[in-house]
């Protein structure tokens, strides 16, 4: 105990030298604290985003391969020919193979052991012969032009929903004037819809309808509506269809905040009007679906337990028959776009920390060594009085440790205070350094995904014209512009570890010198 007390006294006895050492140690610790605080926060954010985006799996078309296939199919005609007459809606007419994830597949994929959770929505064209629908009058006006040809002409408009069905007597078909959505609450989260009355459907057979649809039909909470949907089976000449009856209890009424006619009056049809969307549970939509039936579009995003499981998950999906033209992918581009400035910031601070630690460590070792040399006489006297080397070492280490602890407290305090402004400045520089080319590159990748988004739609989907249902890799994410750094327990422990390492380093340098000293030589040199 005396030796430690004496060490503390020694700190004051040798003020000049210790202040110099303290300044060096403080600088190293404060700098390390700042860089570690920023680094650890940045790492946490990067890991979090990596986990979120890395484990969030989409199934999207392999656009490059599809384009290549298209080129081959059209020979010298090029892509102009694809879009020539029919516009983008014509894409579904091109033989592109079976590029789709069936509803059954989407549901089965969710059962994979690699999937932690999933977000799944389902949609299906529906029909009611008793309800008055919003823009229902337009359906009658358009009847001759739009639906006149039915089996022939509807292909463009309703894409996979009905266009592909041939060999069915059009008179037996229900023309969709509603749309049934399962688990589709995104618009409420995005502020496009709000609950006007009642609540969200939670049980099988419960539904939510728009305020306009409710008013048109004098519907109230608790009323029951009957709507129909069509499920099909088979292909080509052997296709069959069956009508599904949905008796739904209205438990909620929503208010839609989007313009009443999204197409600006260009096309008015009840089927296209958002206010004719009947929202219900996922189960309500998909439960009637038979093993080989189609007619329901299921969109799914899967979240894996770990990002590293992606290859295993993909292998499993391929085994289950996933088309080779569909990619099982994470949203890496979005992840990169978001975290790029933070990664840059982390790299800058890491490099700076390494430089400070190396240079600081060297300076500290040299100073500690010089310090011991200056105290050679004192060491000689103590040794002459019989003090053992280990006690001398303990004393010197205690001094260094006490000095380090003082610097640690100051360094942590100062470091945690200045970390945020330094982080803000460095992050701003990183954001400025992202070149427009890099942004365009990332944006371009997203755009391409968007173009073919609709191609992933199942037969019940809207086809290329209303693409995007399957969700391409559109990049909407802004790079992170704020990093709220904080001093966590792990960071504190790391800083303490580094400080102790520095103290030990300086201590070892001192010890190495002390062991070389013999009291008689020291005292004779002095005398």
């Amino acid at each position, binding site marked *: 105990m*005396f*030796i430690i007390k*004496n060490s503390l*006294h*020694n700190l004051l*006895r*040798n003020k000049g030298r210790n202040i110099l050492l303290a300044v060096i140690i403080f600088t190293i610790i404060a700098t390390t604290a700042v860089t570690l605080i920023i680094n650890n926060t940045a790492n946490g954010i990067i890991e979090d985003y990596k986990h979120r985006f890395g484990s969030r799996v989409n199934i999207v078309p392999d656009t490059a391969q599809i384009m290549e296939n298209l080129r081959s199919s059209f020979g010298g005609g090029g892509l102009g020919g694809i879009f020539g007459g029919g516009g983008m809606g014509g894409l579904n007419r091109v033989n592109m193979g079976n590029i789709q994830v069936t509803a059954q597949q989407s549901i089965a994929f969710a059962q994979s052991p690699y999937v932690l959770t999933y977000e799944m929505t389902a949609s299906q064209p529906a029909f009611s012969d008793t309800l008055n629908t919003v823009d229902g009058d337009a359906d009658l006006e358009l009847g001759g032009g739009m639906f006149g040809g039915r089996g022939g002409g509807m292909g463009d408009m309703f894409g996979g929903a009905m266009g592909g069905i041939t060999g069915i007597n059009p008179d037996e078909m229900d023309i969709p004037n509603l749309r049934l959505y399962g688990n589709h609450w995104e618009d409420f989260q995005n502020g496009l819809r709000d609950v006007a009355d009642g609540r969200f459907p939670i049980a099988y057979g419960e539904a939510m309808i728009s305020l306009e649809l409710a008013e048109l039909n004098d519907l109230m909470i608790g009323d029951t509506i009957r709507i129909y949907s069509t499920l099909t089976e088979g292909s080509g000449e052997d296709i069959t269809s069956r009508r599904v009856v949905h008796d739904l209890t209205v438990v909620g009424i929503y208010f839609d905040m989007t313009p009443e006619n999204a197409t600006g009056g260009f096309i008015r049809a009840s089927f296209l009007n958002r206010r004719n969307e009947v929202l219900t549970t996922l189960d309500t939509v998909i439960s009637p679906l038979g093993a080989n039936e189609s007619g329901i579009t299921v969109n799914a995003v899967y979240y894996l337990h770990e990002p590293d499981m992606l290859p295993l998950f993909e292998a499993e999906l391929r085994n289950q028959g996933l088309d080779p033209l569909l990619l099982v992918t994470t949203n890496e581009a979005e992840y990169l776009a978001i975290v790029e400035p933070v990664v840059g910031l982390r790299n800058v601070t890491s490099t700076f920390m390494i430089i400070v630690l190396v240079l600081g460590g060297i300076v500290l070792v040299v100073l500690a060594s010089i310090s011991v040399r200056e105290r050679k*006489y*004192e060491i*000689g*006297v*103590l*040794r*002459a*009085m*019989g*003090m*053992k080397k280990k*006690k001398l070492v303990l004393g010197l280490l205690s001094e260094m440790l006490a000095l380090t602890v003082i610097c640690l407290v100051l360094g942590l305090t100062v470091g945690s205070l200045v970390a945020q402004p330094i982080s803000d400045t460095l992050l701003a520089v990183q954001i400025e350094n992202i070149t427009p080319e890099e942004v365009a590159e990332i944006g371009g990748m997203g755009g391409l995904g968007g173009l073919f988004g609709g191609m992933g739609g199942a037969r019940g989907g809207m086809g290329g014209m209303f693409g995007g249902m399957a969700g391409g890799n559109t990049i909407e994410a802004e790079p992170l512009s704020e990093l709220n750094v904080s001093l966590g327990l792990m960071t504190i422990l790391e800083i303490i570890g580094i400080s102790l390492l520095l103290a030990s380093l300086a201590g070892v340098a001192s010890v190495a010198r002390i062991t070389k000293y*013999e*009291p*008689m030589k020291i*005292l004779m040199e*002095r*005398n």
Partner: protein
Amino acid sequence: MSLLTLKNVSYRYEGASQNALTDVTAEFQNGKVYAIAGKSGSGKSTLLSLIAGLDTCTKGAIWYRDKDLKEIDRDVYRSNHIGVIFQAYNLLTNACAVENMLISMYISSSGKKAAFDGKKSMEQAFTLLENVGIDREKATRKVLKLSGGEQQRVGIARALAHNPDILIADEPTGNLDNDTENDVLDMFTSFARNDGKCVIIVTHSKKVASIADITLGMKDGTLTLAS
């Protein structure tokens, strides 16, 4: 049995062509004051360093009681059995007088059964310093703020602080005034004759030599019996 026995002790400094000490043989007993006289460079201080356990002889042996110094822990020997008064004081210059005393007491307490008692030791230190003419005010001053004579007295008090068996002094009274010199010499003789300790003094002073029971002469690294 002799307290300290030197048997054919020779010593040569590293890189030197000649021995600093050659075949020195002597015996030192309890209760006696020894004076070692000789010219500068004759090997007196080297002999003291070897006796003090600061170094080991290159030939021969030094025995403390019944043990060769080479076989015992020289740190313990220095801290418990030897008290050294250096010609150049060799005090801890960044500490005050009493702290110099306390550190010496702490070092000598290592390995002993009784734990070091800071408060008790401090009182003992003040008493010892007062015995050599250093009052409490001076005892708490940094030693560099004391005169040469005062520093020497602190050195003497420090050497006596742990009550050693052997007190070795290298020109201990060179910086002292006459009165203090007398007091110090009285302390040495009392230490030897009343406390039964062995006092070995290297000196040029006839006055100091006169209090010795045995005076030894040192010439060219060899020891001779002067009286």
